[in-house]
């Protein structure tokens, strides 16, 4: 048992009368994350199983079709940038949690906001990417790559969207002083969600964008 847990114990003594000494909400959230692993796992599995089976372009990476060289549609620099932003927002998230636990409200609010802001930039990049692909002729219906790519990254994007709304809600609450150190668990759980979304992107980014 770690001391981190002991600190949480001290923060809310009455609520932690559980068999494991762990908070039920946090445990439920981890279980939910476990379920999400299978959701994303299945999406990634279908992406990989259908990889390279599209019958018409656009294709993700450059390749040779009928002796002709075809450019890949994925924009690696743009996505590397948005990956960087998402990682940074995870850093902002841990800082926000740290300040919340220490009761430094203004900084907690600021970092919560910056986390949400990073998420919004990531979403902006994704919207740009999707519309760009749309104009290039890649739709949900075009080919297997389009279907699997849009569903996988779109499902992740939907999670980011929910996360941004979640974080903005917490930012508002924190700004109004409704999240003190005794309620740091709320921020911690939001953090778990946010980092999980980040972890999924850590898996998707190489599998979809970097590995041909």
């Amino acid at each position, binding site marked *: *048992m*770690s*001391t*981190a*847990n*002991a*600190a949480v114990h001290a923060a809310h003594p009455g609520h932690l009368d559980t068999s*494991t*000494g*762990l908070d039920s909400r*946090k*445990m439920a959230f*981890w*279980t939910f*994350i*476990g*379920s999400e*692993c*299978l959701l*994303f*796992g*299945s999406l*990634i*599995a*279908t992406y*990989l*199983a*259908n*990889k390279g089976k599209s019958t018409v372009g656009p294709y993700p990476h450059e390749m040779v079709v009928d002796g002709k060289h075809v450019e890949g549609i994925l924009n*690696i620099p743009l996505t*590397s940038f948005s*990956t*960087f932003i998402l*990682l*940074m927002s*995870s*850093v902002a*998230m*841990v*800082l926000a*949690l*740290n300040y919340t*636990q*220490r009761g430094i409200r203004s900084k907690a609010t600021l970092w919560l906001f910056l986390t949400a802001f990073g998420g919004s930039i990531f979403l902006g990049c994704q919207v740009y990417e999707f519309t760009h692909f749309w104009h290039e002729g890649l739709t949900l219906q075009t080919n297997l790559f389009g279907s699997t790519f849009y569903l996988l990254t779109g499902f992740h994007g939907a999670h980011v969207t929910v996360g941004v709304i979640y974080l903005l809600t917490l930012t508002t609450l924190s700004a109004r002083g409704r999240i003190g150190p005794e309620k740091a668990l709320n921020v*911690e759980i939001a*953090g*778990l969600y946010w*980092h*999980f979304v*980040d*972890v999924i992107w*850590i*898996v998707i*980014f*190489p*599998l979809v*964008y*970097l*590995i*041909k």
Partner: protein
Amino acid sequence: MTSETREIIHDQHAHPTNRFYIVIGGILILLTVLEILGYVGETRGVFSQGTAALVIGVLSAAKFFAVVAYYMHLKFDSRIFTGIFLFPAMLGTLVIVGLYMAQQILPRWGASLGF
């Protein structure tokens, strides 16, 4: 990093310091840069496709574990949480590997063995 981790565990507040989190963030960025370099190297023909895939895979696994262990606190938290997370994560991996084997690898093996 071990000494730093130990220091954190003995820390009274029990939460890693900002500096520690920023260091982890720096490592994550570094690993991402290496991943992208792997991609670039493959495009320029420095390594083969297989090597690049392996390198990028290992790097992203390292990132995965860094975020899960430090940012999601599994390293510092109860082992029950680790179990609750790892079991489905392993099943998810099984689904990915299983479907990939069935659709992409076994047909090739079958062909090479003359089935």
